[in-house]
């Protein structure tokens, strides 16, 4: 499910409707468009739902390799970040607690660890540019002009 587009905030709008003499409300700040990026050298060619399914399986470590056999290196965002929240809701379809239970189970099944969490877009792009199998979620505006990564799909 894509991130909700920017709309006028509901409550100020209602209040404004109730008090017409007050100045019209400011629109909510524009939610940044988020995209999943992979390394430019990664030949992964799936799109749409197939691409989303692959990214989900790789992130949750149900699979460890891209279709070309290259080992996947998923990166998460900080748990408190809006990027991670959108990624979990839109792509994984999981709540924080559900994801925490998943990682606990994975750890106890075979000792695997969750993906490393990265703080900034810039740093995540550097990681993705550095490792051929890497991927992560960033704001689209951060990708502009970066030739070492490519956008796979938008959230």
């Amino acid at each position, binding site marked *: 499910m894509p991130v909700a587009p920017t709309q006028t905030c509901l409550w100020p709008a209602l209040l404004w409707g109730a008090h017409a003499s007050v100045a019209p409300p400011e629109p909510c700040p524009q939610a940044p468009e988020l995209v999943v990026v992979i390394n430019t050298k990664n030949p992964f060619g799936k799109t749409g739902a197939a691409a989303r399914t692959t990214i989900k399986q790789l992130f949750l470590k149900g699979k460890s*390799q891209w279709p070309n056999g290259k*080992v996947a290196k998923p990166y998460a965002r900080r748990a408190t970040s809006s990027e991670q929240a959108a990624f979990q809701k839109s792509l994984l379809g999981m709540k924080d*607690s559900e994801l925490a*239970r998943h990682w*606990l189970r994975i750890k106890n099944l075979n*000792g*695997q660890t969750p993906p490393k969490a990265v703080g900034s877009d810039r740093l995540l792009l550097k990681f993705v540019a550095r490792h051929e199998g890497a991927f992560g979620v960033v704001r689209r505006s951060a990708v502009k002009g970066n030739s070492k990564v490519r956008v796979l799909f938008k959230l």
Partner: protein
Amino acid sequence: MTTRSVISSAIPLVFSLTCAAQGEPGQPPRQEPQSLQEQIREMAERIDELEEMQMETSDRLGSRAVVQSYTAQNLDIGGHISSFFSYIDGANGRELGHTVTLFELYIKARINEEWSAFVTPGMFVFNGGLLDDPATPTVANDPGFTGDNASNNRTLLARGYVEYNPSDLLRIQGGIVGGPHGTTSREYFVPARSIGLGSLHTRRFLANSLYPGHFIGFRASGKIELGGTQDWLEYDGYFGSDDEQVEDPLGGVRLAYVFGDYGLSIAGNFGTGSRAGLQGQATSTVDILSNVPLNLSPFPLVFNAGRDYEFAGIDIDWRHGDFICKTEAYISWEDGFDDQRAFSTEWTWFPTSRVGLSYRFDYYDPGSDMRVVSAAPFTLMSLPFGHSTEHAIGITYDPDPSVRLRLDLHHNNLPNSSSSVDFINFNWSLSF
């Protein structure tokens, strides 16, 4: 280039850019292009990021030494500590005591993308809980707890293997390996459990019951994608020996169909092997007389008589959002003795992010075994154990994703009897 050197080289640059933007002291500021302001802002952001990263790293390391691995690219160290306390209400009285405290380290070392090692050295103190079992009339103190001294804690190695993982299609593990059978046994480690105590047919601590929970040998497993669907096949095949019966081989297979969209997997299982018998190893009648049910089980820890066996079973594991359902049914054909039969179904719902509610029903019939029918003269005879059923309800509370507190209430219908016993387990796991 180190963080410090990046910062020290960036500061003069920012300073010069700032001077350029504001002009020399005493001179009127020049009108600067927007891009310069943008560069300054970006540079300041980068310095902030670097400082934040350096502080975070410094906070984590402190002034302590950094661990260095010899050849591993990655070295993950974690583990858990779990403690169980039980209150038993049986026909002969009530007892409250400690059952087991278990500490296990998880160490995973990866030397490259294909080769890794996983080992879980552990220690435990075990005061096996004795249910009030009429089948063990020689034990005077049941319900009760066996003695163990914390200073003499025992060690265990539940997993210790080398893994070769060239692709998702093939993963080979060799060493002390976990068995693929059973929904709870497959996961083995306690922290992820909703009900701390294993189901009746997997309750024997560190011992294989109906199917092998762990063995010494090789296991090959993998996932096969089914084109055009979200589903896949999982396979497991293994060959080795029981750690108590190393001279006899065991082997088995598991084939699962996983419905990716629904979080549902259905697996068929088959295996064969030999069970070690206490009878052959017993040095005195005491060994057999002391082979009593421990760890809140109504059945003994070890079979008195060894035998060959074959087993088959079905596992169903369904995980959907805050809902988990695990069900398994197994039967084993025991050479010279009655069949074993087991069924377990466990349903868990997490109504909030921290609280889980569970219900489990277990049925277990361990078949038959050579059992003591007379102490003087000492006489053994093949007799059925009878079956036991158990209802368990549990509540879990996770104050932190790495801490789980559990309270389980068990109602066990004892075998060959109309008697039942109730016990409450309070247990917790902290994993790190």
